[in-house]
């Protein structure tokens, strides 16, 4: 892993406020996003971060950091 499991958990938690206010922010630019689209985009964002964290960086052969 690129980051520890605990760091990934914190990172995902930090994304929640972004997720919650995502639609409000977009509306300020005149883009009205449905709740379903907002939830889907949020899940995709968390999944992308998780994928990035799980896939080892190039040249990283040491395995996971699990602290």
């Amino acid at each position, binding site marked *: 892993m690129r980051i520890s499991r605990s760091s990934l958990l914190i990172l995902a938690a930090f994304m*929640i406020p972004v997720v919650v206010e995502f639609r409000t922010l977009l509306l300020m630019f005149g883009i009205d996003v449905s709740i379903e689209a907002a939830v889907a985009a949020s899940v995709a964002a968390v999944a992308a971060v998780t994928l990035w964290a799980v896939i080892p960086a190039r040249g990283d052969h040491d395995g996971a950091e699990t602290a």
Partner: protein
Amino acid sequence: MSTYVERFPAEAKVIRSAFYVSFVSLAIGALMGLLQTLHRTGMFEVFSEPGTYYTVLTTHGVFLVIAFTIWFLVGVFVWAVTTSLDRGVESLRFTWSWYGLMSLGTALAGIAILAGFVDDWPIVGDVSADVLFTFYAPLQAHPMFYLGLAIFIVGTWVAGVDWFRSWWVWKQENPDERIPLPTFMVLTTMLMWYIATLGVAVAVLAFLLPWSLGLLETVNPLLTRTLFWFFGHPVVYFWLMPAYMMWYLLLPKISGGRLFSDPLARVVFILFLILSVPTGIHHQYLDPGISEGFKFIAMTNTMFLLLPSLLTAFTVVASMEHGARQRGGEGHFGWLKALPWGNPAFTGMALAGLMFAAGGFSGMINAGMNINYLVHNSFWVPGHFHLTVGTAVALTFMASTYWFLPQLTGRKLFSRPLALVQVVLWFVGMTFMSNAMHRAGLLGIPRRTAEPWYDGFEFEAGVGSVGELNAQIALGGTLLTLSVAIFLVVVIGTALNGKSSEIETSVIPEPLSGPEDSPLVLDNLKLWTVIAVVLVVLAYTLPLASIIDRGGLLGPGGRAFPMSLDSLVVLAQLATEGALPR
């Protein structure tokens, strides 16, 4: 001899006993929070009678913000005084006596509240205390509630005497030493508490208790409201100052570093001592009968209170950065990665501090006289205080429990990963819930009502819908309840865990800038107390004199009843008798 329980076994037992009462209160209060959330948002019809909602709301408020918080902080204060003075309490019997007083007070007030769930008791008849945490007139509780409250507060006063006594004896033996920082924090907090509780002591003993016993026919609602808020705002700092203490003492240590500045920490606690009390009228911006000038003074005092919080943000972050760099962290922001995010005590307190920043911003809206009119008595206000007492304080107390429990029991923490999930779940749940509460408040959705929907009228959301906000609140409330359940599992698991020899030392490292760098005047507690009292006299003498002059000590009359319609009768009488501004 490294853990606290090895150094002070008898005191550790006192602290454990205080913590366990605190955690039982947390469990009861949290359950009531879930019931309210589900009913108010229309997810489940929990209460068949609307009146039950107020029993639930009072239980939620009083058990969490009086019992959970204060029981926890008295335990922390015993720890702080004994470790920093490196001596046990002077008399264990005296220590257990205030514990006993607080227990008796909690039991009486708690029984009076919980009895409200049953309409008519055998022999004693109707017993209830559906007066909410803000227990001023015209809402009236059973005398047992006021008596319990009074005994509980006297218990905290006696506890303060215990800690002052320890310090006094230590001072005779160490006349040239500066007051150790943890003890300094306890003493300044208690001085503030003594001043703040004068208001509620007068309100309860002189008016509310005799009124509930039938010795007084009427009371002046505005006077009891003002005396309540004399105490009601500084009590927020009684919760917050121990949380700040944890941030100053434990966060740097767990980060692997040392406190950045002892003098700055002392300045912060002195500022809280002198500024916390003369601000309560900012809760009464919409109260008729208090002139706008007095409200403006209260607003100015309140804005000054931002200073100690901003100083704390600087000092604590600087200390964490120092710790992270000791652990190999580099760069302008890269050091953040070196912080011990896997440690639930650290992560919980750090997230609590972060959310407190958001709570501070919404608090500035509340404190502004003109902007307050937009959010007053709306759902915005619970959104705000669930970030302050509900997260900055509650999450800090829960997270620090993960550091304290092994120290107090000699047992290893039960499941560190579960504890980490618990603090993160609280952060996520509170983000959902408090965010939606704030936004609902901006739409004008009221607080303190079981069913905020009306025939022929719909609240209109700027973004999304009210239904989405309700779903967010229900989801957040459910996650928070789950978080409390996990917390209790970890606490019980730890209490039943086997003894361990791998627990870290309880010693707090020396600050980078120690007490020798701070002016001696900072330790002059008499001076700061006198200044605090003078500020309170300046802020409150004229408003109280004006309220008594216009409405009388016992008010213009009116019936007591736990229902808002009856308060309108009192207001109408005030208007008729010329006590209201026209």
